[in-house]
């Protein structure tokens, strides 16, 4: 459902944020995308969702080339950005209506779907309020509800757990599993190794724009030895955290 072929992104100034990425995320799969800050996760996600164009290579969503037919390719995606992209001056319900109008959700499905999502994410009580009265977590929930409201085949979620309360995070994880089990695709980035380990069918680790590893957690263990995913991640990304000395913080 998501296919990246030799995708490279060079930003103005020559910075290579993604370097020849090739990846295929299949139907029924939850794919966790891991990497340190600035490794190229968000850039990759933005290329998958058509927010930015790759410098080289192609991105396909459900067989549709993003560069050739962006409108059709985007219509398969439900996207939650790392920072909630919502029109803060609107009421929550107005924003959801806008998204459903853009995705042309039939009216007979709207109430039923939105009512359930609002109940599940405990946002029913705030839906008539302007979004600028919401907390960060509430905005994140609204973004999620908007992304799921049109029942997209592909969910692309950039750090979706950040800001969510434990109950909502749990619900989202269950929804991700259900969605994948129904033959759809979930692609998400996270820094929480525990979540990646628990719910991902496969993971990808990106470091300095290059995919250092793609496979299951078990495959990673076979490759790098036993340990928690966090430890394996630090090894793959060649982190030198063990050698660091923080005593300077307490010295005068």
């Amino acid at each position: 459902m998501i296919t990246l072929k030799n995708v490279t992104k060079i930003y103005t100034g020559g910075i290579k944020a993604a370097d020849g990425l090739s990846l295929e995320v299949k139907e029924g799969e939850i794919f966790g995308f891991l990497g340190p800050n600035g490794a190229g996760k968000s850039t990759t996600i933005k290329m998958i969702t058509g927010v930015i164009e790759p410098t080289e290579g192609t991105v396909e969503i459900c067989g549709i080339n993003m560069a050739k037919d962006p409108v059709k390719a985007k219509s398969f995606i439900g996207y939650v950005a790392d920072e909630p992209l919502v029109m803060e001056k609107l009421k929550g319900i107005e924003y959801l209506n806008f998204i459903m109008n853009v995705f042309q959700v039939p009216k007979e499905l709207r109430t039923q779907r939105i009512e359930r999502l609002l109940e599940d994410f405990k946002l029913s009580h705030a839906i008539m309020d302007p979004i600028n009265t919401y907390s960060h977590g509430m905005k994140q929930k609204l973004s999620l509800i908007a992304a799921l409201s049109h029942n997209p085949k592909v969910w692309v979620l950039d750090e979706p757990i950040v800001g969510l309360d434990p109950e909502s995070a749990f619900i989202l994880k269950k929804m991700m599993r259900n969605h994948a089990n129904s033959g759809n695709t979930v692609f998400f980035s996270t820094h929480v190794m525990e979540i990646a380990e628990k719910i991902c069918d496969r993971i990808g680790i990106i470091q300095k724009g290059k995919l250092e590893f793609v496979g299951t957690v078990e495959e990673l263990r076979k490759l790098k030895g036993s340990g928690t995913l966090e430890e394996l991640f630090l090894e793959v990304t060649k982190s030198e955290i063990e050698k660091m000395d923080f005593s300077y913080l307490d010295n005068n």
Partner: protein
Amino acid sequence: MRLKRWISLTWTIINANYGLSNLKTSLKKDKKNILILALMIYAFGAIGFSFVFFYKPLLISSYQQLATLGMEKLFLANAFLNAGIIGFIVGLFLLISTLFFSKDMRVLITLPIRASEVITAKLTVVILFQMIVSLAILLPSLVYYGIQKNAGVSYWLYSMLLFLLSQIFPMLLQTIIILPLSRIVKFSRMKDFMLYILGIGALAMSLIVVFLVNKSAINGGNNGFNLVNIFANPDVFINKLASIYPPAFFAVKTLLSNTFSGLAWLAGYLGLHAIAFVTTIWFAKKYYYDTYNSLQQFYAGRRKLSTEEMSGQLNVEKSLFATLHAREWKYFLKVPAFAFNGLSGTFILPIMVIMFPFIFKGNQEASGNIENFFQAIKDLYVPIGILGGVLAGSMSGLAASAFSREGKLLQELKALPVSPGDVLKAKFVNIMEISFMGILLMTAAIHLLLGGSLLLDIIVVLLSGVVSAFLNLLQLVIDATRPLLNWDNPQRAIKQNFNVAIAIFIVIGFVGGFGYLSFKLVDVVSPFAIAMVLALCGIVGIISLIKPALRMTSDLLKRDL
């Protein structure tokens, strides 16, 4: 130590507000951004050009007309008065948004800084912006008057001081109006409403002041002080300034008196401003932090909807165009800085045209002269109507900020399954709807002045629409090429946007150029032909700009931002 901290704080706020570091980095990072520099040079060039070829002759002729009547003292009075009024209008929204809607307060409020330090730093941001008005209006008049009168050292010294302090009084008026009012309407749900009320109130007040001042100057108002009195003794008007705008009274007295009595008047001016400054700080300290804090306390209804209610809200299906079009209107109306600047930019000119005959009402001689002038230009009803309509329909800055006003939300548009054509169409239709409001009002205003027929009015409205559509499309292309998206304060997207400044020059250049040609060719070319040439320009312009507009929108939606 405290001074150093204040300087650092002020510089940081100025830097953040005007995006200086951002611009510097952007210029360094991408050599293509050199276009910004080219645009800046162009804008400064255009300012220089319009100053030399339009403003300077206007200044000279204004001085000479007054000098012929022996009233050149009024030249200085006008400059101080106009700089004050325009500074007040220009700075008002910036003050509101700098105090209440700038995101830097979220950081500043957590830091160990005194309220007075933050306030003075923020007021400095506003006053710097307002000084552009003094630079454009007051300074040239002071210099020209000084040269004409071969003024001595004291004149130049006093002028410098008067110039530097010229925007303090308008800022005091803004602060006195805004802070107590903002405390009254402090509920967060009314924040936008507050901005509308303040904006409309300030605009109405400015128009009333302009009206009263002009009326007083032209026919002396109702209290027996008339044009004959002003001719006999210009000091009558200058003394009248003491009640209309005291700083202008003190300033003019300073410059027109000899060195020593000038010093006394200057002391009065400084005293007035010292009081103004202290009062401003006192008001700000008393009201600002409290009001700011209460604005952060969101009051939300938190009401759950029943299934029926939710169905009522959600079951209105719209086409993609209708959805994007509604989004444009909602975003425009729900951000007060956009709505107020856009609507005032559209309506202010027609309103001033409507006010025009009322200013002269009661002065038979002036009214008679104006009536004769109107009769003389009546044949040019359609071209004048079109050019007036174009000014009202294309100079609001809305088209030139159509993409800039999206800010970070452009990322949302980029991720949605909408084509560049849909986005452009929704924006263009929204802008043209607002343009037509201005065109209709301007046509009504010109109808009131010149008295055209209904048929001519319809022609004026339609052809104004065509020419406005061309100029608006051109502005959309400019904004799509290099939108200003990185702003925290919505005011920046429309008021401090280079694209808007360029668009204003283009519209004024177009209207001025055609106006000048019409005036020169009126004896050899019929007004109908002039109108047709204008319409033809519009049609050719629209046709030739559709493809570039689509291409630029498409490029923008694909670009790394």
